[in-house]
């Protein structure tokens, strides 16, 4: 667009973020060590392993699964996961006849306490634009081919309630331990762009 709107000339993001931090620290508003702590929390303490342990527990413990489907936030908190960007959770279960898939078309809402921060593709145009209008095409790109009689449910996630997909337990996993099951569960399986 040949627009001539007044806007701040954008220097490189490195310089801009450094400038912002220098200002806010220099004014005594932010402790840089607290920035480190935020980064550490989301790099090292939350991530899809949290969600995987929820899924594995649901697979091995029918009582837990019932509580998870009834009140996901409380059942997830039982395992110690809770908080920002996942205060109000709902779990949707894949079955023989139903495949669930989560997107946020308007921004990139995602259940941080159980999945950590979303991958770049979840936040980018291709996935956000296409998941609601051609979910099967997107799933094919992820290697997921569903029979025509499977109902695809796309959850265009809002900010208020966050969705986690409970994948179907693979038949060949019978008899594995909860830890072994958790290791089989992928992040994409809990977004709904993989089967497990």
């Amino acid at each position, binding site marked *: 667009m040949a627009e001539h709107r007044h806007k701040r000339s954008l220097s490189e*993001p490195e310089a801009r973020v450094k400038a912002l931090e*220098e200002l806010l*620290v*220099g004014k005594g508003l932010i402790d840089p060590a607290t920035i480190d702590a935020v980064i550490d929390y989301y790099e090292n303490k939350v991530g899809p392993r949290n969600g995987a342990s929820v899924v594995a527990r649901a697979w091995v413990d029918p009582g837990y699964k019932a509580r998870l489907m009834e009140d996901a936030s409380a059942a997830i908190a039982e395992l110690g996961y809770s908080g920002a960007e996942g*205060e109000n959770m709902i779990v949707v279960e894949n079955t023989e006849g139903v495949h669930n898939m989560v997107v946020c078309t308007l*921004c990139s809402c995602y259940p941080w306490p159980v999945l950590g921060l979303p991958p770049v593709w979840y936040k980018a145009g*291709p996935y956000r634009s296409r998941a609601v209008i051609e979910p099967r095409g997107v799933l094919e790109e992820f290697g997921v081919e569903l029979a025509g009689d499977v109902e695809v449910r796309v959850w265009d*996630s809002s900010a208020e309630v966050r969705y986690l997909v409970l994948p179907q337990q693979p038949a060949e996993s019978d008899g594995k331990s909860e830890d072994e099951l958790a290791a089989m569960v992928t992040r994409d399986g809990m977004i709904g762009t993989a089967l497990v």
Partner: protein
Amino acid sequence: MNSIHDMGGMHNFGPVNPELNEPIFHAPWEKRAFGLWLLCYDVMNFSEDESRGGVEHTPPDEYLSANYYERVLGLLERIGVEKGTLTDAEIEAVQAGTWKAPANVTLSNDATRPGEVEPAMQEGGTKYRPDFATPALFSVGDTIVTKNINPVTHTRLPRYARAKRGEIVMDHGPYVFPDVNALCQGEDPKRLYCVRFEAHELWGADTPARDCVYLDLFEPYLERA
């Protein structure tokens, strides 16, 4: 606001191209931008709804050419000035290397300490407001039609789901209403429903009959069919 952030149903963005072994952050500056963002909610005193509304104001060309954390940076620069935490002159000065921090500044008592991060993140901040329960206008199983609204301000009713018929499948109870809260006009809680739309209602007769989209929508977006 009908800006480019409202991407649902667009074509031509290309393949999803997931990255193998994707790192959580792709550059050190992304980490700093992310950490600053979370802390600035308190420091600059803005809500998540204002944050989303603010990112939506990114000009469309910039929205598409920037990555996620560049959009966050743009938000913090704009909202920091709007809220009076920063000035344009300060941002220009510090970028030019000519800004001098005020002497004898010590860390504010209000500033979050490193040890407070983990408890705060685990606590979070729900937008559920059960005390504001009013009689529900709709019940699970009702057929509704979404309104055709086109506000220039923040809304969570995407364009593709306007003036469409759907079925109420869950009643989540009252939540902070983003359309009002993003404008700093109070929380104004409204009942939030999960609505199921058949794909052929959203996209036309050519789409697979068994596919559907679920959207959480606030009561003011809905009318009885």
